[in-house]
């Protein structure tokens, strides 16, 4: 493998990251920035960043961006893409944002088959607000609002929202990937590339769910976090392509 030591064009220089060590957000940012350059899309992109740890994504990304109210990313993206169908549109969201407060917007933008791409960071907690329970929190997982571990009797079950939208006719590409090892990062990049190409080809909605570490709120080291994704989180949220309506794949 050839190691690259180049700065992606659509990633700002001389910024100090606010992401914690081992956090998956930064890695996914890098993938997005690389692909927008490789696919020559960055110049005609408008991105939407969420309320969540990625609220400051525009400090890193070097393409046009707007910040959404918590959960409303795909409504903004709808307004943007419908106003400017010629542009490439991206909504970047966390699991609280996309699968709790923004569930209606997620489901309905997917159901309308909106022609943009959603990058969905599933870290099984609310990162920004300090590690509260998310809709994706696992059974038994301790968070600040499920201190004894998520108990289905009181807190219900983890929500598989990508699996739900993958069943919609308007959703052309959906895949779940993880950020846990160099090989998994390469796979994640390939998945996001497929999603981007799906939008470029105007085939329908595309969404990539990324299982991503939050060492700070999981109270684990970055290394243990990668292992936890592999051994535990993936058991609830198996990786793989959930739908692929590209030519020859449907």
């Amino acid at each position, binding site marked *: 493998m050839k190691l690259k030591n180049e700065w992606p064009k659509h990633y700002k220089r001389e910024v100090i990251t606010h992401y914690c060590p081992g956090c998956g957000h930064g890695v996914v940012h890098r993938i997005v920035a690389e692909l927008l350059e490789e696919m020559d899309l*960055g*110049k*005609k*992109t*408008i991105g*939407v960043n969420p*309320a969540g740890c990625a*609220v*400051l994504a*525009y400090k890193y*990304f*070097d*393409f*046009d*961006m*707007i*910040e*959404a*109210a918590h959960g*409303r990313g795909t*409504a*903004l*993206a*709808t*307004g*943007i*893409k*419908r*106003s*400017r169908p010629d*542009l*490439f549109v991206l909504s970047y969201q966390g699991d609280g944002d996309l699968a709790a407060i923004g569930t*209606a*917007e997620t*489901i*309905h933008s997917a159901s*309308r088959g909106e022609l943009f791409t959603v990058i969905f960071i599933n870290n099984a907690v609310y990162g920004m607000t300090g590690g509260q329970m998310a809709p994706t929190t696992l059974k038994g997982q301790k968070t600040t609002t499920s201190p004894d571990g998520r108990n289905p009797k009181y807190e219900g079950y983890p929500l598989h929202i990508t699996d739900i939208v993958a069943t919609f006719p308007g959703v052309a590409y959906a895949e779940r990937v993880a950020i846990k090892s160099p090989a998994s990062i390469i796979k994640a990049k390939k998945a996001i590339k497929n999603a981007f190409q799906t939008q470029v080809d105007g085939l329908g909605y595309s969404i990539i769910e990324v299982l991503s570490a939050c060492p700070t709120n999981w109270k684990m080291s970055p290394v243990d976090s990668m292992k936890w994704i592999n051994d535990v989180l993936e058991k609830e949220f198996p990786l793989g392509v959930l739908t692929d309506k590209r030519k020859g794949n449907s």
Partner: protein
Amino acid sequence: MNKIFMSGNHAFAESAIRAGCRCYFGYPITPQNELGEYMAANIRKAGGVFIQSESEIAAINMTIGSAATGTRVMTSSSSPGISLKQEGLSFLAGFELPAVIVNVMRGGPGLGNIAPAQGDYFQATRGGGHGDYRMPVFAPGTVQEIADITFLAFDVADKYRTPVMILGDGMMGQTKEPVVFPEPIGELPVKEWALRSMGDGPSKYLASLILDPAAMERHNWKLYRKYKEIERNEVRYESYMIDDADVVVIAYGTTARIAKSAIKRVRDDGIRAGLIRPITLWPFPKQILQELARKIKQFIVFEMSTGQMLEDVQLSILGKADISFYGRPGGVVPTPLELARYIYRECQNKKELDYET
């Protein structure tokens, strides 16, 4: 000039399309459904976009996305739906994005009813969303004025980069009247601040999160200066039979129409009444009321509520004249006779009081 017979709800939509509105997002709610239906039937013919959103929250956030690209955009609803849009209105104000929001008010609180009411005055003029912002609020009085003001609202929104609200009510939305529309607008100037993707230039971003309190304060003062400019430039009102008036009625929208009929009646009985009809509720026509209060000592505020605009009148007149209030809340539409009786009684009472003192 073609005169068309049209309902207020349709006139909002037709005028918006003529003003260059190219995106409409809304969720059905009575008594404004005809607005969205007209958009569904007509905006695509003008090359525009119509989406019936999954909720009012989604509609206002689609509006934000569209406005960010520099597109002229409208959303509409009625009272409960406007409550759901408040977070989005605050974001529009914070981002300094232009958009036109129509509220065809109905009775409340809660689900209330679908009858005409004016109970959302506070929500509209006091910044129903969070944070230190203001928003221009227009209150047309006829279908013709709905057409004219909707057209104007897009210009005001663009000029000051602000959301603008137009307040109607169920009566105005449903009433059909002859109307002459402005000619469709031509090419609009490019909005330099809009997100159009970076191309070969630098990238832009629109953020409402400003973590540094000093920077947030600067942003707030910047907005404040803009609001002061709007207060200086955009006040609009109609005066009716004011020149010889001894008593001034203040009413907007539907109640102003009722007030005009009532004023004609009491004038037949020798009471010289006049009307000030605010066309902008924010900025409120304070100055004219202050001037009138120097010579006229009796004011009557008339609303389809328990008294909301009343507070703006009190804040304008500051105790320099008597203010009384007549209102019917909850969707009850008062008759001209009822108001005429009230004006008459108030004037008689005042005469007796003045005689005694």
